[in-house]
């Protein structure tokens, strides 16, 4: 064996030893109690009360505030809109969560609705940080939202507030539905209007199909979601279906350009909604409509108010809050 080969082998061995020692060290650093993935199905094996939470989920931030657990939040995200005047640092959550910021905040849990990569979640768990996943996709209806409220209550020691919040939601949903049925009867002889919720125009006509919390808005407001029969979850609908089902009510995300509805080739151009001016843009607080939490009650109230022109009454929100959870002012 010549001397150069020996040197090369020595360097390779040295590098392997260095790498090995760093890895052994890292396992030592990470060798503490691993975090858990927590969902509404976790059951009774919940960790002790969480007191340093990073919320990458605007819906969860709002719910924690309403439950009286906002003091346990050490980090939020740039999409949070409620409560206003948030006084916690925003943690970057797109395209991936910023683990450096999360570690720096000494978080004991991260709440998210997003499917981050397994490697990132694994990093959190290995460093003793719990990952609370609250789905917002297909399968989330008001029953699931209430279970999410209960879970957040259990994790933060505010389960009593979660219970009264859920009771308020149930009573409100029943009241709203009864009011909507009555308004529909008097305005349209009890024939539900066909509606379409236009969420995004990015690469198609994005909407909410069956088995989504947005689809529940339609049901409680006594409307027919034309997108529901074609697919579950959030998806881009074929424009031919829009033309064929000719929606009578259009609810638009605030990012949708209203003038585009009337443009040449638009599937909405000849819809009754456009002809009759039944187009409503969600402007007050986008998160109230697009995030699954207790404030969806106010979203349904707003839809009923806009579609039927009548203001359904709601029981008072049972928890005393500094900031009004209903930014629409429909009381």
């Amino acid at each position, binding site marked *: 064996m010549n001397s150069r080969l020996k040197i090369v082998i020595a360097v390779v061995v040295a590098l392997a030893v260095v*790498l090995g020692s760093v890895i052994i060290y*890292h396992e030592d650093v990470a060798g503490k109690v691993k975090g858990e993935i927590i969902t509404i199905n976790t059951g009774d094996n919940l960790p002790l009360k969480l007191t340093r939470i990073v919320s990458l989920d605007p819906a969860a931030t709002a719910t924690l505030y309403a439950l009286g657990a906002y003091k346990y939040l050490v980090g939020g995200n740039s999409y949070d809109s409620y409560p206003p005047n948030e006084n916690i640092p925003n943690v970057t959550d*797109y395209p991936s969560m910023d*683990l*450096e910021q999360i570690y720096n905040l000494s978080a004991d849990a991260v709440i998210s609705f997003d499917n981050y990569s*397994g490697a990132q979640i694994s990093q959190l768990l290995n460093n003793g940080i719990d990952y609370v996943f609250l789905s917002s996709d297909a399968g989330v209806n008001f029953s699931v939202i209430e279970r999410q409220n209960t879970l957040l209550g259990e994790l933060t020691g505010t389960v009593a507030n979660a219970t009264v919040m859920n009771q308020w939601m149930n009573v409100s949903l029943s009241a709203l539905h009864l009011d909507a049925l009555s308004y529909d009867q008097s305005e349209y002889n009890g024939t539900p209007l066909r509606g379409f919720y236009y969420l995004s125009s990015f690469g198609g006509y994005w909407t909410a199909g069956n088995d989504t919390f947005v689809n529940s808005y339609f049901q409680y407001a006594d409307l027919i979601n034309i997108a529901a029969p074609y697919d579950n979850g959030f998806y881009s609908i074929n424009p031919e279906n829009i033309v064929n089902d000719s929606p009578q009510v259009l609810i638009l995300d605030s990012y949708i350009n209203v003038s585009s509805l009337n443009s040449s080739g638009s599937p909405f151009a000849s819809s009754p909604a456009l002809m009759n001016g039944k187009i409503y843009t969600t402007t007050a607080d986008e998160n109230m409509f697009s995030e699954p939490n207790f404030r969806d009650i106010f979203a349904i109230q707003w839809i009923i108010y806009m579609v039927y022109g009548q203001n359904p009454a709601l029981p008072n929100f049972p928890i005393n809050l500094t900031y009004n959870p209903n930014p629409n002012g429909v009381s």
Partner: protein
Amino acid sequence: MNVLENERVTAFVQRSREMKYVWIGFLFFLLIITILLSDFIGSVRIPIQSLLEIYGSQIPFLSHFVPHGYTLAQEQIIVQLREPEILGGVVIGASLGIGGAAIQSIFRNPISEPYIIGLSSGASLGAVASIVLGFTIFGIYTQQITAFVFGLSVVFIVYFFALKGGKIHPTYLLLTGVAVSFFVSAIVALLLFTNINLQGEVFFWLLGSLENINWTVLYPVAIVVLITSYAIYLQHRELDAIQMGDMHARSVGVNVERTKRITIFMVALGVSASVSISGLIGFVGLVMPHLSRMLLGGSNRHVIPASGILGAIFLICADDIARGIVPGVVIPIGIVTGIIGVPFLMYFMRKLTGGRYEG
């Protein structure tokens, strides 16, 4: 040539060779500096004293004598996040650079790179299939393992399609690689078409990132890259001969087919392992061997290690930029390598080639 002239030539060759080792030593030093500086870059500012203490605490036996004035969060950020990401950059950059040098020698084609033999499309297929079809067979590392297996499999398919009479002709291998890549890319597109919601996730994989590299995935990949890189380096004389043409290589006693087979296998193994944890990172395998040749001449004895070191430096710098442009947001590294890499190459081609690529 008289004796004096002979001695002058020998001395010149000797000096030139020594200079090349000095260059490689300098590049290695530059790599170490780049690694150390990169540890400062991130969305959380960590004081130099804390950083040095964390370094000290990682050295066996020395750790007891180093003050521990840093916080647990700082230690986690450096040890769990930045170090694996930076060392991942070293490993992946080196494997792409070395793979590029070897592949360019075999193909005798300046625009070839490791991905040309179907590796990238195969790895994409594995990763995309695992995302779109929701494979979970290997737990959270399913995506990495399927990318590795598919990358390697497609290279084998390309190799066996290109094999004619027990021999591999570079042009035939190149064309087969391109054709199979197109075919596999069409399947990737079809998979994406079936679930358009996952395009975002796939998009980030296709543009590459070092962000998700942790020690668990880095360790096996580093060992594979270390071994394959060394194996490729051991072929440097044979690759030099093949660069001059198969006939020439045979005339000087090189077993051409065996060398190609070993080299392609080693490149496929090393680069597949790298790509499996980082996604597709372009440009490094194409350009770093050229830059090495511009600096150190054409011998693979110097080009292979220099390409590895330059690939590592380049990828770490690109990752620093990807992490540093918008605090907290990591831009896919493929975007950065393309945007900074192309002007960088154009500049060096004009300044350093001295007309070597002309005519």
